[in-house]
């Protein structure tokens, strides 16, 4: 794989996003911007007001005869199977017999206009038989209510190791969920054709799953449904499985009415009706030696799965697989409980359990440090995975590419971490009300879907006779720049300028049976599939060129938009024409599957990750101990991207992921009332980071000269999710600031998100505990 290139837009170049022009001019079309065909109907859903209730009766007669109404549908009207569960068959499109969360769709109404559909929705009467609801993780845990059986991971002899250790502590911590708050909410548009065929435009990260779901719900073969998505206005995991239900509703109504149907969720409905990041309750019991080295650990990880499993099995597996973060846990029992609650089913969100798993082990490390009176980083240092030994994870994969120690050392020396610590000390010595905190966060994130079968991708490349190229692959564009990166790959292989490559919508009829664009693996998988397709065509073209120049294929070189045989050359376009003239195909598919993966989902043992992406961040914060307010003063990041395919795009991913993670850990708080209703269903009550919430000073660097040791596409590494977890540095720094109020004598009791209220309470709490122990010591 040669990477030295003089073409415009080769791999490793800082190429702009392919839709940059469309975005700054407003010309880039999202689904809601597409011109609607005449007769397009719009949909409003009647949803459950109760967290748990039987459905006694549904009366839609008045709605049916309301103005403009074309169809009213409940569960009984679904022609195929009333299920869109991505893993288990447990997720109805429309509630059948009972509802199990507030916001569950019960009736769908299609009318000539949105307002008419909404008016009709108000005329639907549903009689409920309200049942007791389980709204909290603890309730479900006590009653052993799970959406699927708990998952346990064990290595060594944790109980004996904890009991034998010189020190033993236990604790509890929790983290909140997170709404995706993609700026473009869920939307789908279905257009019926003859023979029962349907085209579906869906804002989805997973067109194949939408295709399968729609076909399943309609009771038609998969080949009757074509799904297309050109771009999403953000997704972050929220459109991995959640899009299917809305596409299915639009499809069934379109099929029934013989008219196009569009469904677009309004913001409040989107936040109420769709899943979020899983909130977790953690309990830990850990044994360690005098240096803080972990000898045995037992961690309970209870997640709010919600009403159904959805993607919880994958999220929980990843949480378990990241409860080690960068640390060797020789004896560990990690117990995962997918708690079934009467709240909307939680789902994929950037990091997919990884952030939650890391949050608990970082809390454990901090607790060890406070117990021994050492610094957190000293405790980390004795626990980092080794290079040659101490390198087996709790799921028994050997960590072969560990660079965390060198990466952390480099970041620390570049920013003079020790100097920063001293500055924080001296600030705090002279300030009573304001307290600064500082923390480092190392990250090791496993790249690949935990389920090996998902690690495959396809691409379709055409070269036209004028030398222009059409590129299609199974990955979707949600703003992350995947389309740009994959086009750079094709440009580099053909050695032609990037503007010769036409990037096209993801369509299930071009590349079939794809995986979700998720798990940070979009460019790893689709980049490699496109690489393979392009090389197939290139080899054929090289043969034609060799015959034309009467030389061997080995002598043919593609370079700077031309094809050379010694001193003779043809333009790429002329060779394309010549290839066609010679009746040789200029179209090819490409396929890729990640090598070496295996995973036993029962024992949670295997080799689920192709490689690890590493990174580290240091954040400094200041808290106001009288108000609980916090501010991030400075963050420094060093992130491993392998040989970055596009450093500009990767920097954007790092910054964006970090701020999104910071939001999860500080300002984004989901609040439900005692009736199971979400109270924070819009940006006026749910606070995602704004421009003034970002670190005052934000220095982000990509680790240089760090090619992936695995042969990934041009030795790059995935970047979508790993940097999100660097934001734990902010949460840890806030905890550090709280702990510094009492000179680190106690462990703060501060969960995530660390909102001002939570910080204020943690400060009061740690002062109270400190005064109690001080008083006790005097007695």
């Amino acid at each position, binding site marked *: 794989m040669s990477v030295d290139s003089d073409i415009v837009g080769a791999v490793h170049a*800082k190429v*702009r*996003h392919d*839709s*940059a*022009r*469309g*975005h*700054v*001019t*407003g*010309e*880039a*079309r*999202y689904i*809601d*911007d597409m*011109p609607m065909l005449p007769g397009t109907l719009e949909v409003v859903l009647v949803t459950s007001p109760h967290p748990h209730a039987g459905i006694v009766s549904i009366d839609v007669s008045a709605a049916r005869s309301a103005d403009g109404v074309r169809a009213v549908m409940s569960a009984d009207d679904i022609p195929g199977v009333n299920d869109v569960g991505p893993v288990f068959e447990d997720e109805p499109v429309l509630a059948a017999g009972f509802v199990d969360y507030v916001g569950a769709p019960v009736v769908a109404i299609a009318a000539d206009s949105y307002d008419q559909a909404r008016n009709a929705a108000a005329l639907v009467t549903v009689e409920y038989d309200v049942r007791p609801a389980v709204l909290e993780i603890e309730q479900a845990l006590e009653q052993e209510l799970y959406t699927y059986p708990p998952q346990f991971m064990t290595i060594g002899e944790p109980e004996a190791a904890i009991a034998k250790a010189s020190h033993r502590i236990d604790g509890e911590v929790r983290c909140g969920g997170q709404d*995706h*708050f*993609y*700026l*473009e909410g869920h939307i789908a548009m279905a257009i019926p054709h003859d023979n029962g065929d349907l085209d579906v435009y869906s804002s989805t990260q997973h067109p194949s799953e939408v295709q399968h779901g729609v076909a399943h719900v309609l009771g038609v073969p998969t080949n009757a449904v074509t799904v297309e998505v050109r*771009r*999403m*206005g*953000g997704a*972050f995991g929220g459109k991995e499985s959640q899009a299917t239900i809305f596409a299915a509703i639009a499809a069934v109504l379109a099929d029934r009415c013989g008219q196009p149907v569009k469904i677009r969720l*309004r*913001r*409040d409905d989107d936040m109420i009706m769709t899943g979020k990041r899983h909130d977790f309750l953690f309990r830990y019991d850990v044994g360690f030696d005098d240096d803080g080295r972990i000898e045995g650990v037992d961690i309970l990880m209870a997640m709010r799965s919600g009403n159904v499993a959805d993607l919880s099995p994958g999220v929980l597996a990843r949480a378990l697989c990241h409860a080690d973060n960068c640390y060797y846990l020789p004896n560990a029992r990690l117990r995962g409980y997918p708690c079934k609650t009467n709240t909307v089913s939680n789902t994929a969100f950037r990091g997919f359990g990884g952030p939650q798993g890391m949050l608990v082990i970082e809390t454990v490390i901090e607790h060890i440090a406070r117990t021994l009176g050492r610094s957190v980083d000293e405790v980390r240092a004795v626990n980092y995975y080794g290079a040659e030994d101490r390198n087996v994870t709790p799921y028994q994969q050997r960590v072969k590419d560990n660079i965390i120690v060198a990466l952390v050392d480099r970041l620390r020396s570049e920013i003079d971490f020790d100097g920063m610590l001293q500055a924080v000390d001296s600030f705090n010595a002279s300030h009573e009300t304001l307290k600064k905190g500082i923390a480092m966060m190392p990250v090791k994130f496993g790249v690949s879907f935990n389920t090996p079968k998902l690690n495959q991708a396809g691409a379709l490349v055409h070269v036209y006779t004028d030398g222009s190229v059409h590129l299609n692959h199974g990955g979707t564009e*949600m*703003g*992350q*720049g995947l389309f740009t990166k994959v086009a750079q790959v094709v440009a580099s292989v053909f050695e032609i300028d990037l503007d010769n490559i036409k990037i096209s919508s993801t369509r299930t009829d071009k590349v079939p049976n794809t995986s979700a664009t998720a798990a940070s693996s979009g460019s790893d998988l689709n980049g490699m599939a496109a690489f393979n397709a392009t090389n197939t065509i290139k080899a054929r073209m090289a043969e034609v060129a060799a015959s034309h120049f009467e030389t061997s294929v080995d002598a043919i070189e593609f370079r700077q938009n031309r094809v050379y045989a010694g001193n003779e050359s043809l333009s790429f376009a002329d060779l394309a024409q010549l290839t066609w003239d010679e009746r040789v195909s200029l179209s090819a598919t490409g396929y890729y599957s990640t090598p070496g993966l295996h995973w036993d989902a029962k024992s949670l043992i295997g080799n689920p990750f192709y490689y690890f992406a590493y990174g580290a961040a240091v954040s400094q914060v200041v808290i106001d101990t009288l108000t609980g307010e916090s501010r991030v003063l400075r963050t420094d990041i060093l992130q491993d991207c392998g040989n970055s395919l596009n450093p*500009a*795009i990767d*920097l*954007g991913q790092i*910054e*964006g*992921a*970090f*701020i*999104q993670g910071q939001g999860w850990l500080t300002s984004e708080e989901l609040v439900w009332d005692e009736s199971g209703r979400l109270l924070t269903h*819009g*940006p*006026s009550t749910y606070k*995602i*980071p*704004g*421009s*003034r919430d*970002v670190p005052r000073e*934000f220095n*982000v660097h990509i680790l240089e000269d760090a090619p992936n040791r695995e042969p990934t596409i041009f030795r790059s590494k995935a970047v979508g999710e790993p940097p999100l977890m660097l934001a734990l540095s902010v949460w840890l720094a806030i905890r550090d600031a709280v702990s510094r109020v009492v000179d680190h004598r106690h462990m703060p009791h501060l969960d995530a998100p660390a909102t001002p209220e939570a910080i204020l309470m943690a400060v009061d709490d740690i002062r109270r505990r400190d005064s109690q122990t001080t008083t006790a010591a005097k007695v």
Partner: protein
Amino acid sequence: MSNISFQLTVNGVAREVLVEPRKLLSDVLREDLRLTGTHVGCEHGVCGACTVQVDGRPMRSCLLFAVQMQGNQITTIEAVMKNGEYSPMQQALHDEHGLQCGFCTPGIVMTFEAYLKENPDPTDEEIAEALSGNLCRCTGYQNIIKAVRMAAAKMNSPKNQEVEP
């Protein structure tokens, strides 16, 4: 409710519309005038994606009734390019990677097209303040702030002032 007919001046052109009096400006722009560059993100005036200019001032079109806008000059993202050329703000967002999914971008352009006219030389702090009414879930704002700085610098350069009448 019955429709009423009235005139709106959008991007310098008088347009006749026939809509319900309670129809929002954002919906009239998108649905009746097919100016879909104005995006609707939250529908209650917080995210800023639907920002347009009314008489040169940035306003949230999801909080305005179209019928209120008779006699006002409405400018949308579609009118920012002049003669096929980017404005300095558009150019800077494009060049500085100040966008990812792009859904919030038109609103940000409209905010700063107006802001930079009144504040030609803002500090980063002032830019962040001015940007606080536009939510972006993708970028972490760094490159947007950088882009505004670049756009301001370009607009202030003597060369550019010669070109601008």
